[in-house]
């Protein structure tokens, strides 16, 4: 009898009310302008809703109005902490339509830059994720290493954040003379620095308590939610576009795909840490085998792909980043559709959060590694 009443939510000593807490869009740890509406019972989350679109710029619609070459810089601004990866996806998509053969050297340099970008993106993720959980020092350490990568970008591309690295058909410039030694220098310091983060976090009791068993997604559930990237691999699914459908020059390199076991926040953390090490291995192989030659294929000044459609996807730092384009034979795409990994991964937030506490929601937003530029497009 009493149990039934308790189940109905009556017969409590005081009037118990569920509180609706509006987290964001201006909030320190929603990683941008994400608005999360939480329904709280005490501190336990019983309901969660994401309100997105505060950063909507209509990139897909802009794609229909601009020529193929003009669209590229807009892709830098999708996932603004991994601009180079975004460029690679779009540029390769257009090349697929044009059926252009990109020179080997350009492919290798693209791989080097993209993997550097993956390391930079994961460093930023690690820093903000750790800061959300309260370990502020890791953030500053991560920024120190990310700075090195950004300096390499700056000298090669001219920009640090929205690095417009690639052109349709290859690269605009060849690498500068110090490029190779500088990347090698960075690779030399990176393992030691990753050890530093792992010393701070891996065996840290508080870090373990905050991440182990939090936001568990079994493999089936992760697939049902169509997660990709480290969020999926943390659940133990060995799916990586670089291996599944090798693009660019990835078929030439040997590397492992790290996977987790339990699909909790800690496993996703381990997967990303291991991915950074694997990226370093890829870069080293690419530098060793960097061929000489031109960096730009013969591409017409005005790009008019043949009538048809294309879907191309790459393994971005956040997951499978895809582009679907329909060409009607003119200089502008008839339709451009982006598959943003952040947006799709974000859909699992509700599934993971319910039943956890407010503090875990912050950790879970962090573990998904979302970037609102990409979510809202």
């Amino acid at each position, binding site marked *: 009898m009493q149990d039934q009443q308790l189940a109905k939510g009556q017969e409590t000593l005081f009037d118990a009310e569920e509180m609706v807490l509006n987290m964001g869009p201006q909030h320190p740890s929603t990683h941008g302008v994400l608005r999360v509406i939480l329904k709280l019972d005490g501190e336990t989350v019983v309901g969660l809703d994401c309100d997105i679109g505060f950063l909507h710029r209509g990139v897909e619609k802009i794609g229909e109005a601009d020529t193929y070459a003009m669209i590229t810089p807009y892709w830098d601004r999708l996932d603004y902490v991994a601009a180079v990866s975004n460029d690679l996806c779009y540029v390769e998509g257009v090349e697929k339509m044009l059926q252009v053969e990109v020179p080997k050297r350009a492919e290798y340099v693209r791989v080097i830059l993209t993997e550097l970008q993956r390391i930079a993106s994961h460093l930023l993720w690690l820093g903000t994720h750790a800061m959300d959980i309260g370990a502020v020092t890791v953030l500053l350490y991560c920024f120190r290493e990310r700075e090195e990568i950004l300096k390499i970008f700056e000298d090669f591309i001219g920009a640090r954040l929205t690095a417009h690295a690639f052109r349709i058909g290859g690269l605009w410039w060849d690498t500068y003379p110090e490029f190779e030694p500088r990347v090698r220098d960075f690779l030399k310091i990176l393992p030691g620095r990753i050890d530093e983060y792992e010393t701070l976090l891996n065996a840290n009791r508080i870090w373990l308590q905050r991440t182990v068993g939090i936001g568990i997604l079994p493999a089936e559930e992760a697939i049902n939610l169509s997660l990709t990237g480290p969020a999926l691999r943390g659940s133990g699914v060995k799916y990586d576009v670089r291996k599944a459908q090798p693009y660019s020059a990835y078929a030439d390199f040997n590397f492992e795909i790290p996977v987790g076991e339990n699909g909790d926040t800690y496993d996703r953390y381990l997967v990303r840490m291991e991915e950074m090490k694997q990226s370093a291995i890829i870069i080293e192989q690419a530098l060793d085998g960097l061929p000489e030659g031109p960096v730009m294929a013969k591409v017409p000044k005005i790009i008019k792909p043949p009538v048809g459609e294309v879907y191309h996807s790459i393994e971005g730092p956040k997951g499978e980043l895809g582009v679907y384009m329909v060409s009607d034979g003119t200089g502008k795409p008839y339709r451009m559709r982006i598959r943003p990994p952040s947006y799709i991964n974000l859909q699992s937030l509700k599934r993971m959060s319910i039943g956890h506490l407010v*503090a875990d929601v912050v950790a879970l937003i962090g573990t998904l590694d979302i970037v609102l530029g990409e979510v809202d497009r």
Partner: protein
Amino acid sequence: MQAILTTLLFVAPDWVVSLTRERRPNAFWAEYVVWPLIQIVVVLFIVLTLVAYLVYLERKVSAFMQARLGPMRVGPWGLLQPLADGIKLLIKEDIIPIKADRAVFIVAPIISVVAALVVLAVIPWGATWATIANVNIGLLFILAVSSVGVLGLVLAGWGSNSKYSLLGALRSSAQMVSYEIGMGLSIIGALMFARTLSMSGIIDAQRLDGMWYLMFQPLGFLVYAISALGETNRAPFDLPEAESELVAGYHTEYSGFRWALFFMAEYSAMIVTSAVAVTVFLGGWMLPGVTGTSLFGLGPISNPTLHTFASIIVFAGKIMLLIYAYMWFRWTWPRYRYDQLMELGWKWMIPAGLANIVLTGIWYVLALPKSQGGVFGLMQEERGRLIPNRWAGIVYFIVTAFVVTIPIVWGLLVTINRRSRDFNLHDQRQLQMQLRRERLEKMLQEQPRPAETGVQ
């Protein structure tokens, strides 16, 4: 009247007495009006300056830990930064939210800062005249008054009329009340040895016993140090102001100097808890080899004023060491979650404190002189109180504390927490995974899928 006051206050130095020689009766004015006022002004001035510079120090320490420089712009090495911060906070617009409860909103920071500053009166900053009031229940006074500070936080959270503030205040009140119990329990073991609650009495007892109570009470010190972190809302227990979740916790709606008052309260609470730890466990103003009359056996210190100044420096140095440890923890460790924090408080700190009291009591009774019913007879009476026999007694207490008490208490805590959620993380993970699977299967079977708690 005068008798009570004499027991409360230390005798003023001669120069204060001579300062008030025009007044009659001379002694009363000198000792109960002029001298305490001088002490209060000096202590407040020094502590508040210290608070301002602790903020600077914290920024510098964190900067050096994080491979950056910290404040460098205002003055040489940014030394004038606290001043600039203070001026900025003073001339900021004073914002009180329209929906806030005005009176409560205004009163809350005042309660906080007053509670934090009043306890400075009984801290034994140095030997002889360096304490404002030598209350014979000094330690109890500190515990009692500093817990009033919780009220300030609760009122701030409630009066702000903001959800973040409310959550922060709920967290902080629960946290501070819980950790105060552990803190109170942890010092009882040391009090058994000291047999007094007077702050300078405790230091004196450590001198007579010939050993800092850290050695007799390592577990008590550990529990105290952790509870003190929780009590002062410092990382890794800084949940009430967890920036990543609650923006700024209970002081989200505060700005300008009201906010600075909360900050002041937090840092002076740090100083106070460190001072208590130094007094109870770390031998106060004593250093090994330094006594009131000699310096490492090199020669006698004949000047009592010099001795007092030296004692103040030693005391402050020990406090600064502890505060550095506070900062070190803050910039190294992640933050606990609310339920884990409560678990640590109730399932680890309080049982450990209680077990420590019981075990210390047993060791103490066993060591009593045989005439008083003890078994080992390792204590002797000296100047009206029991002290451990030289060496044999001291070694006995140290060995029992380190070799027997700590393993027993550890075993007890493991027994209590074996099945708790965070103790065995591996099993916990498997269990949750299984639960998740079952829920998923159930969800897939049920058709149509139940609408999951939509908020909007």
